[in-house]
């Protein structure tokens, strides 16, 4: 802890600890989902951008599955309904990937990207953005091993020049996206 957080805790315990001890606790369960703690803490300083990918594409079929390959990205699904791996080879291609992936999965992936090399190499598993997601598991791999280096003059949008990795990935059904403000005769998409 920093000196500030240590001293703040000392003050809190001294000034309010006795009252808390007397008040007790109403919530008996201490069960916690084992998420958020480290990831969010790590992400706080490092987050540089949020990238939305609209998953849409027909792709080409191989051995009962689907594999879409471009210079910019690769989408692989080895069997119908099986896990999907999205490999992003070039950050500038995200908009192209948007167009491809949408029709394929009817899902949308949102990536949070941090600055620096990936602490763990490999693809990042996307967590369901809403309960009861029906689609297949989706993973996203940035670059060859989880880290993408954008050199000067090569980036058109998104995160910019530097070294990046995916800190978090959420997947949402397309039907859940962009419909919140819409209805018959009304749209918020201009």
């Amino acid at each position, binding site marked *: 802890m920093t000196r*500030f957080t240590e001293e703040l805790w000392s003050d809190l315990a001294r000034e309010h600890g006795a009252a808390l001890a007397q008040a007790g606790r109403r919530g008996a369960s201490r069960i916690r989902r084992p998420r958020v703690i480290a990831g969010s803490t790590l992400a706080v300083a490092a987050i540089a951008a949020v990238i939305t990918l609209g998953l849409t594409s027909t792709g080409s079929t191989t051995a009962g599955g689907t594999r879409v390959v471009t210079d910019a990205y690769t989408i692989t699904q080895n069997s119908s309904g099986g896990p999907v791996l999205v490999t992003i080879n070039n950050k500038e291609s995200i908009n192209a990937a948007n167009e491809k992936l949408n029709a394929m999965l009817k899902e949308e992936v949102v990536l949070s990207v941090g600055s620096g090399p990936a602490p763990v190499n490999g693809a990042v598993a996307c967590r369901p953005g809403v309960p009861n997601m029906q689609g297949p598991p989706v993973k996203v791999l940035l670059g060859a091993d989880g880290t993408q280096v954008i050199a000067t003059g090569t980036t058109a949008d998104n995160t910019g020049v530097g070294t990046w990795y995916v800190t978090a990935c959420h997947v949402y059904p397309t039907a*859940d996206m962009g419909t919140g403000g819409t209805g018959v005769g009304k749209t918020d998409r201009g």
Partner: protein
Amino acid sequence: MIGEQPAAVRARSRGRPASSPLEEFEQVYLRNVDVLMGYFARRCREPQTVADLTSETFVRAMNGFARFDPRRGSDRAWLFGIAAHVFARHCEQSAGDRDAVARLGGHRALDEDQIEELAERIDAEREGAALMQRYAGLPAVERSAIELVDLEGLTPKEAALALGVSGVAFRKRLSRARSRLRQEHRSND
């Protein structure tokens, strides 16, 4: 990495289970104090303000901990809800009116070392602050939705709890926000 928990915090967090409300709250504090400081550091440039708002959030949390039920949502979501109220109230107050914070015990005089620590924390949040600035065109409620889910890693359900809205209403906000960002993203191409 800048936001990583110090070893001492990790060791204490993984120690024996809390045996009293105070120890239980200490674990909540250790898990969340850095994240909450970051939340305020993205919004404020003054170390003293970040210190006061962080302090006030935990004073309120400690006073309300008896009513916190972890079965309804995570402690982080609960704390973000308090932090959002604290920040909203801070914005409503005039610049010179610090009485309310002082009354709640949130105001603490900082020494030079602490000011420097907090200034470094604010500096460490500059990327997050810049990102929030980039999203400044979004309505505040939609910006909050994006921030809590995509920046802080809360689930939509937790974020809805933090903002005090229903899950359905929250998902609508999130959907609108992402829709707007997609539009902006495309228009920038």
